Structure formats: structure tokens, C-alpha cells
């Protein structure tokens, strides 16, 4: 999964402002961030610090109010919605806290969905989905529906969906937040194994146990990237 382009992700002067009625909320302010291919980055910070906004921008679910975002050498901050959709299908794998599997689709159909949007031929899709499900140990549940799975199993399927087709980067938003500790550990182990296989992973987490899994931690406070020490000081 690692790519020669370095850095794989470059954010420069990124700001995100939300306008609700007369209130202006600065979710991110002047964020500069480089993430190299193959890196395992943990994003942490207190509630409301902008972690999810940052992840959304990285995943092209949202566009910045200011600044530039270069993904694998391509500027992507000014892409149209449909161009962003194509990039998401090709280059980004999401793992959500709430799993976000589609209830009406089987495990297999959930996993191959992104590949379908990518326009991958059926045979290739089948191979890639099987490979991903095998990797997370869920190949035996191919025709099950999400409701028939435990929370931990659902998240493993979500991981399989994210990694199927080998995206450039995996973005995980509190992937263990809805799981018991055993299932959470299993998922983090899975992410570690993926990283060891060369995947670029950005994970948002509160859990200090899992921060240690990451090679690098990025601390956010009030929408800014800050050194870990300064966060500790202010919090203290």
C-alpha cells in the first residue's frame, strides 16, 4: 500500500469555518500537516477540538475554507463533488466508530460496494472483497447481513470494506468507540497488521492504549495542531 510519493498527504494552512445562522465556528485554523506513505498517525485531542473535521477533510467528505490539500501529489482541495467522490472511491478507505455498514446489503456486498463505485470489473471485485474479508477473518460470513453479526464482527467487516482494493490511505474515526475492550483490541491489532503490511493509517482516538499503536501522534486543540506538551500544560 505504501506509495513512493512523499509526503502522501500535505495540508498547508487549512482552515475550516462552519456558519450556523449568525454563529461562525472555526473548526480548524491554519493546520499544516504532512503524512508520509506507510505512516500510522493517531489524531487526538479533547472533544470539539476538530479531530472529526480534520478526518473529514482528509477523507474528502468536506472541503477546506482555506488552505491547500495535496493527496499523492495531486491538489484535491478544490475538486468538484463528483471528482471528490471518484477520489474517495479510489484512494480512501473509511472506518467509522458506528461501523456504518448498510443493513440491506450482505457482508460481501458491503465490502465490494466501494469497488463497484470505483468501476472495478465484477471478477476483480469479487477477488478483492474475498481477499479483504479473509484478511479480517470474516470470509465465512460472506452472505450474512450486518444485523446478524456482533459489534466486533461488524467493525471487522468495516475494516475489510475500507482496505478492499488497497486504497492509498485508511481513515479511522474512533474505530473502537462502540466496541467492548476485547473487540476493540482485536480491531486495533488488525490495524497494526495492516500498517505492518504497508498501509497508511490515520486514526482518531481518545483511548491512550491505542495511541501507543501509532508511530506518530498529532494533537489538536481548538482547531490547531499543537505540541503534546503544550496541550498538557493548558489542560493542567
Amino acid at each position: 500500500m505504501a506509495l513512493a510519493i512523499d509526503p502522501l498527504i500535505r495540508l498547508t494552512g487549512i482552515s475550516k469555518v462552519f456558519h450556523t445562522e449568525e454563529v461562525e465556528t472555526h473548526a480548524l485554523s491554519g493546520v499544516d500537516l504532512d503524512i508520509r506513505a506507510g505512516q500510522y498517525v493517531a489524531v487526538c485531542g479533547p472533544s470539539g477540538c476538530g479531530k472529526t473535521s480534520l478526518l473529514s477533510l482528509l477523507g474528502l467528505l468536506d472541503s477546506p475554507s482555506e488552505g491547500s490539500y495535496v493527496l499523492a501529489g495531486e491538489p484535491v482541495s478544490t475538486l468538484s463533488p463528483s471528482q471528490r467522490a471518484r477520489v474517495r472511491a479510489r484512494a480512501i478507505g473509511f472506518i467509522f466508530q458506528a461501523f456504518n455498514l448498510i443493513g440491506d446489503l450482505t457482508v460481501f456486498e458491503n465490502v465490494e460496494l466501494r469497488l463497484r463505485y470505483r468501476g472495478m470489473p465484477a471478477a476483480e471485485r469479487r477477488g478483492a472483497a474475498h481477499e479483504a474479508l479473509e484478511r479480517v477473518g470474516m470470509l465465512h460470513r460472506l452472505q450474512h447481513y450486518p444485523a446478524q453479526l456482533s459489534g466486533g464482527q461488524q467493525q471487522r467487516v468495516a475494516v475489510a470494506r475500507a482496505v478492499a482494493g488497497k486504497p492509498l490511505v485508511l481513515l479511522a474515526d474512533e474505530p473502537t468507540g462502540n466496541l467492548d475492550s476485547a473487540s476493540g483490541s482485536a480491531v486495533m491489532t488488525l490495524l497494526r497488521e495492516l500498517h505492518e503490511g504497508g498501509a497508511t493509517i490515520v486514526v482518531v482516538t481518545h483511548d491512550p492504549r491505542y495511541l501507543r499503536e501509532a508511530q506518530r501522534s498529532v494533537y489538536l486543540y481548538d482547531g490547531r495542531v499543537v505540541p503534546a506538551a503544550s496541550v498538557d500544560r493548558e489542560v493542567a
Partner: protein
Amino acid sequence: MMDAFWRDVRFALRGLGRSPAFTAVAVLTLGLGIGANTAIFSVVNAVLLRPLAYGEPDRLVSLTSGLSARGVTNLPVSAPELNDYQREVNAFADVAGAWPININLTGSGEPVRIAGAGVSPNFFRVLAVPPALGRDFTLEDTDGHVGYVALISHELWQRSFGGNPAAIGTKVRLDDDPITIIGVMPPGFRHPIDNAATPLELWVPIDVTSPDPNFLNNRDFRVLAAVARLAPGRTLAEAQRSLDGLRERWYAQYPEAYSRAAGWRVDAVPLAERMVGKVRPALLILLGAVGCVLLIACANVANLLLARATTRGREIAIRTAIGGSRRSIVRQLLTESLVLATLGGALGLLLAVWGTSALSDMAMLYLPRAREIGLDRSVLAFTAGLIVLTGVGFGLLPALQASRADLQSVLRDTGKGMSEGARRSRIRSGLVVLEVALALVLLAGAGLLLRSFERLIQVEPGFNPEALLTLQVWLPWPNEPEKGRYFTPEQRLAFYDRAVAAVEAVPGVRQAALASQLPLKGQSDAGFEIVDRPLAPDEPPRSAEFRSVTPNYFETMEIPMLRGRTVGGERDSTAPAEAVINRTMVAKYWPNENPVGRQIRLFGPDGPLANIVGVVGDVRQLRLDLPAREEIFVSARRFTGQQMAVVIRTEGRPEALAPAAMKAIRGVDPEQPIFGIMPMTRILADAGAERRFSLLLLTLFAGIALVLSVIGIYGVMAYATSQRRHEIGIRMALGAGSREVLGLVVGQGMRLVAVGLALGLGGAWLLGRVLTSQLYGVSARDPVTYLSVAALLGGIALAASYLPARRAVRVDPMTSLRAE
């Protein structure tokens, strides 16, 4: 118990008030459905269900003659036949006859023509309806052929005498005879064989036992509509058996009047069936159609309630959590449905008041008993029943579904993005399928009628109806005709000549002609024989349409002269007459010959001879949807009747010349009423009135069905899309673009529509079979119609699915994912 009910009602009203948009859409939808049903039921009730307004109406029987071999049915009967029924059919307690006639009422201001009837003196006793004022006819009233007394309708009494009881005993002049009004019939009394547009308003007694062979004592003079009353304990079947026996006796006793080869028959059918049997299929089809509209409306409201139940899941769960039983929750929700249905019913009733009046006006020309259409207790009871039925019908399923909610999962949920249960989703989808299927059935029915009507108005009537004004005159025929002003043919001819000359002098009139009967204004059947070509033993008697016309009739009507020339202006009654025949008659009797110069004998073996002098093109005489039958035209100068129609070819709009033409004829005889003045195009339009009635209503109902089902599809798709926002957000996060999202939402909608269309096509095929009798020139399985309406409905459904899909494309994945 009642406290609980009123509490539920109050809560329902409060709840509905909090959702004004939902309430408005539901009430409007139900109002349309219930209103349309109430209006059509008011027609069905008045025409088919309400007993005839006569005493013991189920014992009244209509008697008609027919000729099986010639396909002729519903012939009136002659006075000798009527007397035979009276004397020889023991199953009948009494038999009466009525001869519809037009009577000129003069001497009281503007001369008017009144539709009336000469009736046997026992007529009203057979109907068991005595006059409301004055007295009934007695046998003594028929001194002479037609008595000098009359009964009038309540409406004529009100109109002409201001409802003054002193009208009894008043003398008026009817057809130049002094007649005394002896009674007034009850309000709303209708003559059994009546046209709602021109109801019969005056009755005079006639002597059906008159021995005068020149009056009614002639077996071939069939002018009487016969009504019999079954004797107590006797049945229709017994009466029919007696009539069949009577016919056998006639064959033997009067072979010249009753030909076995012609297949003489006498039919006894219930009077109600005779009056309304012809329109029953069309009315039942319309009742079925509005039933479909109501089903669609119910499906729509059920869908709305299912959607509402989802958003109210938390409220229902709380009610359950604090001890509410499932029964109490279902009762509460059903009360809401009934309140909605009642509001819809109230709106429907308002719509029905307007609709019933419009239907009554529209149906006058076509529907018997159309004047009786209105909202009565039966209709109100029907509407009340509909309200309860629809309230429970659309409310029960959503109520049961809502009351089955999983308490824990609902209460744990914050209420945001709660997903719809699969069962509820299936019900909603099923309802959409049902709506589409029913809408397609109605659209296909309307489409078939529309194409049929289109074919009908394309039918060439055989003449040019544009710029053609028509009017009719009926010269008075007093009780002692020889004393009348128009007794002799010369007197009548002199009047017509002067009248036509006066009309032709009106500026803007190009030409005027006379005809004994206008096309499409009724049958004028007459027998004839071909000289030197006697009937084969098994050949039925020959007959044709018969009209006397002035020589310029064909030119005025623009009927093409194919061979020979028009009739001459001969008056010599000793020389053979001249006849022009139509193309159909030539094809039947002289297929490979020139008929000009051949001779026919009119009316029978003793009738006058006529030389065929010309051949004209066919005219649709009876109905636009029936091919022309054989027709004989003779000169009106030789055969000058009491009643003639004037056809006037005009330079401009014919309606504009109507007052001047009437004035011109009044200039000849100020006491001569003129009636039926209308452009020929109106006669053509009226000829299609029956089809237009069904067409307009079915099209209206199909339109409502289309709108309701589109609203239904839109509602379901919009709701389903809002329920799938989260899923759409996930899909977009995974890379779905606008095309994929559009495809997802529209595809979901169109799958339901496709199933509905497939089911609807099956239903439409069944409806087509029922509609066959109403169609003309188009098959009940017309693929063009079926495909067109399926494409129309599919296209509109696509648009209804597309709008929510467009909104789905604008879903912000961030927002929808965050909402979870």
C-alpha cells in the same frame, strides 16, 4: 367509555392540528376519493337502486315487441295487441298504454310545444300513482279518439299556472282543441318512458279500444308503450309463457300482421330494467372506477400514516412504557384515522353537492331518471359508511404497525435517524404498487374510451353538418282533424311552402329544405316490396328507413347524389311516386344493377308504387356507431306529414340565425310552436352524449387517480430517501457520485412502479373486457392504448421519483454520518 372516546377525539384533533400539512394533504386526498364516490353513488342510487316512484314498482312490467330475424327489439305495441294482453294474459292484473306525443299548447301567450302522452284511461291506476290534485281519467273521458281533458305535471302546473289550485277546471288549447285540466300529478312524478332532458308534462286520455281502423285499431300501428301490473301471486315467467302462447295464436289468426319468418316476439321485462337496464353496465363501471380512486386515496393516506407512525414511535413507546395497552394505542390511532376520514368525508360531501348537480345536468340527455339524481338519506348513509370504512381501512394497518414498536430500541434511540422497519417498508412499497396498478387500470379504461370517442367523432355522418341549422314544427292535429287548420295535405303543404320561402328570405340563409325526420333523431321504419321480386317463403319482410323530403334536401344537406336525380315536386297522387334510395339499399338489393327505373311498393302490398329515380350516399340515420341501413326518400310534396324538420344551410354561424328563422315561420302562423332549434353539429354531439358521459367521468377519475398515485409515489420516495440519508451518506463516503445516488433512488422507485404497471396491465385487460360494449372502432386489447398509458404513468412516476433523488444527491455525507 364515551369519555375515553371524546378524549381520543380531542387528542386526535390536537395532534392533527400540530401537523397542518399532513392533515391538509390527507383530508384533501380523502375528500376527493369520498366526494367522487358519493357523487357517483348518488347517480347509481337515483338510477339503479331507488325504487321507481310508483306503487309496488317491482310488480310493473314493460311489454315490447321484436323481430328476431331482423334484429329489431323494443318495438312499441299496437292497441289491438294491448287489448289482447289485457284480456288474455291472466298473469296481468291490468295493462295500460302510452303514446308519447308532442302537443302544441296555444292561447296562453307564446305558443309552446309540450312533450306529453296520450294514455289509456287506466294508465295512472296501473302505475298506482293518483293525481295529487283533481281526479284521474275515467273511461268516459275518452269520448272521441282523444279526450278533451288532461292531467299535467306538478312542474308544468307551477310554471304555467303559478301553482294555483284554480288551474283545475281551466281550459287551454292543445293542438287547437279546447282541453280542460282535470288534475295535477304529484311533484317528482315521471312518466316511465321519459327523456330527462325533455320530460313528459301533460297526459290526455286516448281510446285504445276504439274500433276505428284509421285510428288505433290496426295491428300494424305500433305506437304504444305498454305497461302491465302483475296480478297478485303471479310471476314474470308465467306472464312470458302466456305471451308466447298468445304469439302462436297471432301467427295463426293474423298471418298478414305477424310473420313467423320475421321471428315475432313479445318480451315482458321488469319496468325498472326496461328504463335503466341499458345504462347499468356503464354506471357500474363508473362505480368501480371511483372505488379504485378511493382505494388509491386510502393507500396514500395509509402511507402518510405509516410515515407519521415512524416519527411518532417515541411517543407511542412512552405511552406503552407508562402502561398503555396495545389495544388503547390502536384505539387512539384509529380514532385519529376516523377523525381524518370524517374531515375528508365532510369535504367530500361538499364536492359531491357540486358534482351531483354537474352530473345531473351532464346526464340529462343520456340517463333515465337523471332528474332524480341528488343527495338523499341513502346517499348520506353511504357516505357515512364510506367514512367509517375508509377510516378503518387506511388506519388499521398503520395503527397495528405502530403499536408493535420495539419499546427498548425506540426508547434507547435519540429519535434521530431512526430507521424504518422492514415490514413497514414492505407495506409502504406494496401500497405504492397497488396505487400504480389501480391508476393504470383507470387510465387504460379512459384511454380506450378516449380512442373510441376519437374514432366516433371521425365518423363521416354522410352530410356536411357545418353551417346547418335545424328546427322542427309539429302542425296541430285536433280531436276532430277535419276541422283543423292543417287537415289536408294541401293545407300542410301550403304552410310548409310559405314557411320555407320565409326562412329562405332571411339574410344569411343560403337554402332551406324539409325532411320528415332528421338524421340521428330516431328511427322511421317502413316496410316495402320490390315489384317483380316477391319475398321468398323464409325471407323476412323488407323494411327500410323512410323519409319524405323536399327536392333540395340532398343539396342542402350536401348528401352526394351518386346516380340519377332527386325526387321531383310531383303532387299527382294517382301516378307512381318518385323515390331516391341510398347506397346500402342498392348494395343489398341491386348489387350489380342500376336500380334507377326499378319500382318499389311502399308500406306493403296495398301501398303506393314508387319509381326509383336516384341513388344517394349513405347517412348515419340512427347512431354514429351504427352503419347506415337501407333508406328510402320520397317527396315531401307527395307525403306531407304533420311533423317536419326544417334544415337551413347558412352562410355564417347557424345559431345566429335561429331568432330570425323562428320569426319568419311565426310570420306564416303566429300560433305555430317551433322547437328543437339547434345547429346540426349539436345533434351530432348529442348523438355521442352517452359515450361522452362515460368518457368524461372515467377520464376525470383516471386523472384524479394519476395525481393521487403520483403524490403517493413521490411521498413514498421522498420519505424513503429521507430515511436513507444515512445510507446515502455512507455510500457517498465510499465514493458514490451523483449518478450512482440518482440511480439508487430512482431505481428503487421505478422497481415498485414496474411491478405496479405489470399488475395494472393485467387489471386493465380485465377492464377492457367489461368495457367492450362501450367501445367503437378500437379493440378492448388495443396495445397502443395500453402501452401509451403505461408509458405516461411510468414517465410521470419517473419524475416523481427523480425529485427526491435530486435531493438525495445533495445529501452532505458529513452531516448525515454525523447525525448517526
